[in-house]
């Protein structure tokens, strides 16, 4: 029995009866947690390129499931430079060992872009047997062995700020590096600067559920089916912010805020990029539903492939 697209949509948009936005993953999480009783937490290797660790920090903000549950019950985070106990060469060797032991079965999570100039010298992630390991080399070697790659954040998904005008390092997103180096592993882009934790956990949990039901290949194929042309999961990135904005009527009535702190009207003339941005922030909000960019200021379109250059200047319409 395949995971029907509408079930996936329901899980992500929280319309399962009686479940609020912050708890919308409970059915999927419950199933996945049940699976882990047999000890089947999939290994995840997490690489950081030209990033800022913001994607990891955002993930720490997941409310339900908690990050403790994600780390202890959902995935087996075998390599993550920011939180792992070990260090240096033994940590790198452990990473390679896991990649070989679970070849074709582990997930590679990537945050940050990958510099290709100077043979990858602008981002060195480790040293093994007196040899530097560049992010570029690690991406090719581990990417080729992974079941799938999660390109987390706009940098990894589309290049983002490291790839913006003025950059000097030939910075590239995961998909372009793979195309250049002939790596065929499927890539799921979860953009955002940073991505909302729900987008990361939601995609991961539903992918695991599909894999549990259908096996690895067929399960991944189900996930790939719901990606849009920019490689993003449509349940999170299929709706336009402007079309769903609480200030849409003000826009239609030409009622525009002249200054940031005047909150009654549409923020278009303050530079809001909602019309060119597709994400569910208008519904999900941020940080456990506390606030979101349009309510607080303006949208700067951080999930889009052309962020930041195509969204600049941020404060001009």
């Amino acid at each position, binding site marked *: 029995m395949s995971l029907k697209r509408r079930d996936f949509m329901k899980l992500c948009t929280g319309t399962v009866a009686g479940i609020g936005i912050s708890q919308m993953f409970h059915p999927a999480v419950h199933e996945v947690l049940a699976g882990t009783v047999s000890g089947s937490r999939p290994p995840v290797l997490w690489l950081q390129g030209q990033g800022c660790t*913001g994607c990891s920090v955002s993930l720490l903000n997941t409310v339900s499931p908690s990050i403790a549950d994600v780390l202890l019950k959902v995935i087996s985070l075998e390599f993550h430079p920011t939180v792992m106990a070990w260090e240096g060469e033994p940590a790198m060797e452990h990473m390679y060992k896991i990649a070989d032991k679970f070849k074709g079965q582990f997930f590679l999570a990537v945050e940050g872009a990958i510099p290709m100039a100077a043979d990858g010298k602008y981002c060195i992630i480790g040293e093994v047997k007196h040899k530097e390991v560049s992010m570029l080399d690690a991406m090719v070697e581990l990417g080729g062995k992974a079941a799938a790659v999660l390109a987390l954040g706009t940098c990894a998904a589309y290049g983002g700020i490291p790839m913006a005008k003025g950059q000097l390092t030939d910075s590239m997103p995961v998909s372009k590096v793979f195309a250049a180096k002939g790596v065929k592993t499927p890539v799921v882009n979860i953009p955002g600067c940073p991505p909302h934790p729900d987008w990361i956990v939601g995609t991961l949990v539903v992918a695991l559920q599909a894999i549990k039901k259908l096996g690895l290949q067929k399960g991944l194929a189900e996930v790939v089916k719901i990606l849009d042309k920019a490689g993003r999961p449509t349940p999170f990135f299929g709706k336009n912010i402007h079309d769903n904005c609480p200030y849409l009527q003000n826009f239609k009535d030409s009622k525009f805020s002249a*200054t940031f702190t005047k909150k009654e009207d549409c923020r278009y003339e303050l530079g809001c990029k909602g019309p060119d941005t597709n994400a569910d922030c208008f519904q999900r909000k941020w940080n456990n539903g506390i606030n979101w960019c349009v309510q*607080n200021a303006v949208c*700067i379109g951080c999930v889009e492939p052309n962020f930041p250059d195509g969204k600049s200047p941020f404060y001009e319409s």
Partner: protein
Amino acid sequence: MAAGKATISIDPVTRIEGHLKAEVVVEGGKVVDARVSGGMFRGFENILIGRDPRDATQIVQRICGVCPTAHSTASCLALDEAFGVKLTTNGRIVRNLIWGANYLQSHILHFYHLAALDYVNGPNTAPFQPRYAKPDLRLDKKTNGVAVGQYVEALEIRRICHEMVAMFGGKMPHVSGQVVGGTTEIPTKERIAEYAARFKKVREFVEKKYIPVVYLVGSVYKDLLSVGAGHKNSISFGAFPLDDMSKELLLKRGVFIDGKVQDFDPAKIKEFVKYSWYDDSTTGLNFKEGKTVPKADKAGAYSFVKSPRYDGKAVEAGPLARMIITNPDLSPMGQKALKELFKLNAKKFMDLKDVAFSIMGRHVARAEETYLMLLGVERWLKEVQAGGETFVKAAIPDNAEGLGLTEAPRGSLLHYVNIKGKKIANYQIVSATIWNANPRDDSGQRGPIEEALIGTPVADINNPVNVCRVIRAFDP
């Protein structure tokens, strides 16, 4: 153990933010030389050139996802000066509330989720295992269990701190709510109450759990109070203006050199690049003339970090520097712990004397700074005006300069902007960690972390646990 010489290379140094390598030479069981290397370059200063100046406050946040509010604050201060705009009182206070909440998050994250595994054994699963076979973990089983429980609880507490930041900042990481001229959202009575309710929970954790456990761990690892001294010179640009004229700051401004606190002069800052992967023609420049010209193949260089020096001296930045220069009263729980666990009667931070310049001294400084920040937030919650204007509009100047000085959780932070024809002509950033994690300067003087590593005991080169303990205490 080994009396011969051995070189140990640790890359990656984990449980930090970013990419760092440590190479130490060990002889007679102690570190006799060290090179610390930043392994990644993006080029924000180059990427900013030619842009609308207001875009800077958004772009620079992406320098760091742990402390984006540091960069947005410094950028806003530089632009405030360049645009010639003066904040409203409420704008200043809301900026402090946004900024202060992330200090709390950052310090809690650092001790528990970055540093603690150096002293605590985590659950028997990834990412807490595998680890060194001889990790030198000395906490008894019960205390270790308490520490693990706090690690898990701290995950929730730091998430709540981010909710506080987002209350007026829009979202975290990378706030939308800080702009030149102030902040974008006027606080309402309800949202102030929501912020305050979360603050109460965070405060309780800091006072009852975080601060006491730092002292407890320090008392179990007393030998680490004499490891990691370094040059013993410090710098603080100061942060968190307590009045509209910025006459008084919560974290004071100054330099501590050769045992004395002195006034700070930004003109005395120069960046050196002889051992950094940048063109040699750009060495010895003050930020006003600063240039960033990467040269990844430069012989003899070993880091992408430039070497900033103050009046030629390598100065440490961060909580230890700030606590020395500010010298506040120690927290009540800190004073109690010092009496009970160390038999020390101390009232002010400087009563700790030389012991402060150590691995454990830096963790204590961070915990004490967190307490000081609690007092700051408490004060700003009383001062903030529901409904009070937080934003002052200002036009982009044709040609102007601005300097923004603040303190990121990790250390002194400077943003300098030069605007020509309404666009950014030059933008230079001297950031927190580059004060600490820099390589040698042109005269061969080691950087603060490199110097702090000298003398570090390494009994077993296959389990060199003290090396990264020294590094992590700086929170790079």
